[in-house]
């Protein structure tokens, strides 16, 4: 692979992998704390899927940039500013409603994202991966959508909590659909779809689900951003200290 193309593929893989790793980690924090036993099985299972996606993508990235010898080095041994994930995924979980709403937003986005990669992507291994990833993110989106409807259309209290979650997450949605020079380059090279090309399909589906739950999607504008450049929020430092603890305390440890 030519070096300029290699740099692009590496960075592109890292962005998606970091999103999945960090949301996977956040989701895993529910293990042992979910409101019912069924959800205590569901959320860690989803976390496992997300971390599995991240692992595969990091492995592909390591094949391209051999400075990194394995996926653990990318997942656990980078510094804060080297992570390229969205601010949305690093925010604290909040309550269960906030957690499933974020999962719904993200997995619905990824579902459309992988569907586009499946249709067009110059990087064969990612194109193949997208077939499987599409199926799994669809399942996550379906699971989360059911909770959004159940809680939104539940009691007065659960509806208020979901409305609060919508307000709480809204400032982070703009970044999800934000094109930058890098995403434009990826799109021109038929590598990855532009984030804003996903907005229309995403909004249609999210609107339908929120309406079923007597909830409204606010207008989305670009407010908080920086994750893609490695500029993170305060919550991220605490998350990393937890995520990286084992590798920092026992370097190169493995299962």
């Amino acid at each position, binding site marked *: 692979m030519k070096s300029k193309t290699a740099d692009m593929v590496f960075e592109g893989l890292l962005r998606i992998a970091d999103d999945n790793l960090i949301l996977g980690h956040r989701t895993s924090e529910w293990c042992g704390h979910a409101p019912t036993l069924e959800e205590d*099985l569901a959320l860690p299972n*989803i976390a496992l*899927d997300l971390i*599995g996606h991240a692992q*595969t993508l990091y492995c592909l990235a390591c094949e391209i940039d051999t400075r990194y010898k394995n996926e653990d080095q990318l997942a656990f041994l980078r510094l804060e500013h080297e992570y390229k994930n969205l601010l949305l995924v690093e925010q604290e979980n909040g309550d269960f409603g906030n957690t499933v709403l974020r999962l719904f937003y993200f997995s619905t986005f990824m579902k459309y994202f992988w569907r586009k990669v499946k249709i067009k992507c110059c990087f064969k291994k990612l194109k193949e*991966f997208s077939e499987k*990833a599409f199926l799994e993110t669809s399942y996550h989106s379906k*699971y989360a959508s059911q909770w959004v409807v159940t809680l939104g259309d539940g009691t007065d209290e659960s509806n208020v909590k979901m409305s609060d979650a919508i307000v709480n997450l809204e400032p982070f949605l703009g970044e999800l659909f934000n094109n930058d020079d890098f995403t434009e380059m990826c799109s021109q090279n038929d590598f990855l779809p532009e984030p804003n090309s996903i907005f229309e399909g995403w909004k249609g589906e999210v609107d339908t689900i929120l309406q079923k739950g007597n909830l409204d999607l606010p207008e989305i504008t670009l407010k908080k951003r920086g994750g893609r450049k490695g500029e993170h929020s305060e919550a991220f430092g605490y998350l990393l200290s937890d995520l990286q603890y084992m590798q920092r305390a026992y370097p190169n440890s493995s299962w």
Partner: protein
Amino acid sequence: MEKGTEKAWDVLKDLTDPELPFLTLDDLGVIREIRRKDKNHVVTIAPTYIGCPAISVIEEKIANELKKLGISAIIEKSFSPPWSSDWISENGRKKMEEFGISPPHPKETKSFSRSSAKAVKCPQCTSYKTEKVSEFGSTACKSLYRCLDCKEPFDHFKCV
């Protein structure tokens, strides 16, 4: 299966899945191809789920079994076409049911769509009066059901 790889296939097909130990890798349709590449055997496996924790155990098992035959193996994961529950053999489905897991429907029924409502059979009492309790069961590949007749909870292998 390529010529000269029959010996490898003979031992690998009987290896069992670490999470569903009553099923072989052949029952699950996880081993897709064995081919020769120079002095190595390349074994292509299709993971049931991308993040399935059993994958690394399966890879290890395959490598160890082949090592016993003096064969060095390279194991590759394949996601295209994605592993499908349709690849589970008839025999595998039978064993699943005996073990108390309701086997997946054929994929044509499109149970991935939001509105799917295909009846799931209780593996205990064979009643179709069952309901889904949770999208996720004890592992990523199963969802949780309960029987409205015999009242027993059971796992249903997801259709993917």
